[in-house]
């Protein structure tokens, strides 16, 4: 048994209650979630339907014309399995219109633009339907900074942010998500053939074990070397965690007064709920 093994039924119960509690107490009618065809968003969608029922959950597939057709099919299969709602919003026109004005072949720029278009669509629907935007970033991605700031990282609630990628698979399997989602290699699908683990230079299986020891157990790095983790991977992981700290924080405010937002003006987000 690995230290990363979770009690999936317990996690399911907590996350369902979390979604239900945080949505209902603020008076929202449900959640809207971008469904990419990948495991994380499928799992978030699944948990939301279990928590709130299919009528209170809207999945939105937002393909760009170069996105893999398989992704859309996978998104449909997840919604189909739950008799859930799924709508398709093609983001190609607005993305293409932008890059006609500001052309680039830079994959990061193009990918980030698409992620932020999707965010923009989700927040528009959120306003229209009085639904909260449900996030799908897992703990591995958040720690490694493998996400687009104000893109997929923008959302109101995130049930998955304290689960490592390997734990996402455990939970998804326990919930009975379609098997082809479980066997797919993780991809941000920002361009054809993209694979997370190639971008990162290490596997999630490796990174998760390292992150668990660094973050959860707070082991000093020499102890990780003693445990046999390759120093270059440990260093690469650590450096990503440090370098991407800015993505996990609100923007910095220059302090001038005696009470500054985020510094010494401190209120819970659930204030009054």
């Amino acid at each position: 048994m690995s230290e990363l093994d979770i009690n999936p039924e317990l996690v399911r119960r907590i996350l369902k209650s979390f979604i239900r509690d945080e949505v209902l107490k603020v008076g929202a009618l449900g959640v809207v979630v971008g469904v990419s065809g990948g495991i994380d968003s499928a799992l978030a969608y699944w948990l939301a339907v279990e928590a709130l029922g299919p009528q209170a959950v809207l999945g939105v597939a937002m393909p760009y014309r170069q996105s893999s057709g398989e992704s859309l099919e996978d998104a449909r299969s997840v919604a189909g399995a739950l008799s859930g709602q799924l709508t398709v919003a093609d983001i190609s026109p607005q993305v293409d219109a932008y890059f006609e004005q500001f052309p680039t072949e830079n994959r990061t720029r193009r990918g980030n633009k698409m992620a932020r278009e999707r965010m923009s669509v989700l927040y528009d629907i959120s306003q229209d339907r009085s639904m909260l935007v449900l996030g799908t970033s897992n703990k591995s991605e958040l720690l490694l900074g493998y996400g687009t700031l104000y893109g997929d990282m923008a959302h109101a609630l995130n049930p998955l942010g304290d689960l490592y990628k390997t734990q996402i698979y455990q939970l998804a399997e326990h919930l009975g998500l379609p098997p082809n989602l479980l066997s797919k290699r993780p991809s941000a699908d920002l361009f054809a053939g993209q694979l997370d683990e190639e971008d990162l230079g290490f596997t999630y299986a490796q990174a998760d074990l390292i992150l668990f020891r660094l973050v959860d157990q707070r082991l000093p790095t020499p102890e990780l070397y003693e445990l046999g983790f390759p120093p270059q991977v440990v260093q690469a992981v650590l450096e990503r965690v440090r370098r991407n700290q800015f993505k996990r924080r609100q923007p910095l405010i220059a302090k001038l007064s005696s009470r500054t937002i985020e510094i010494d003006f401190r209120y819970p987000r659930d204030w009054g709920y």
Partner: protein
Amino acid sequence: MTERERPLRVSLVQQAPRLGDLRYNLEATESRLAEESRAGQDLVVFPELSLCGYFLKDLVPEMAIRLDGPELQQLGRAAGRAQAMVGAVIESRDHLFFNAAVIVGGEGVLHVHRKVYLPTYGMFDEQRYLATGSAVQAVDLRFAGAGTWRVGALVCEDLWHPSAPYILSRRGTDLIVCPSASPGRGVAASEPELGTASLWSSMLKTYSALFTTFVAYCNRVGFEDGHYFWGGSSVHGPEGQALAGPAADQPGVTRTSLDRRLLRRARIAYPLLRDERTDILNSALGEVGQR
């Protein structure tokens, strides 16, 4: 002796207070308290900071009430013949803010325990916002028909320091009540239940057996800023036996009756209280001093 008196009827009320909404929580507490009182319950326990919510941060001064203020009087009236233990931020005359468990009845405030151990680590930040209590006391509470019970309150983290229940034990406490706002964590497959729940459950069982006393635990439910409060309210008897609970993680009331003859039985079977060597403790504490 009180042998012929009926058992003490205790209610543990698991609630999810509205964070930072004193008025709403006060009304909810009042109606639940009145209901328990009408049902003939003697002692109605609410969780830690039940009148305001837990992760208050800068809301602490706004949520504070006074011991002589109208809120506690209102609850005292609602208690009828019962007595209630509620959780509140109590502001002192010199404007210090305490995380307190207050026992209130028809006659007014009967006892106050100001939390002694304010956790300030990990997700906790209590010492940033709150003042630290400096005493662990017990109080004799008289219940019509159920006699007099010596009751001590310890708020959540207080119980993680064995000296706190130890002091109550030395004070001859019959019932230790622990109102709590324990955020759950630990979902490893190697544990049969939530890590936090399993630690608490062993602790409550162990304390009740070691101090041969009743231990009642009342934890809240609901979520605040992503923190999950897991409920699990329970009562253990003076031989460590589970008498009620653990409750599930939903709002609800656990009602139970405490037969004080169990105290006598336990202390005959396990005279731990009698045999405790406070002389050794005193001299050892004198030697090690303050660390």
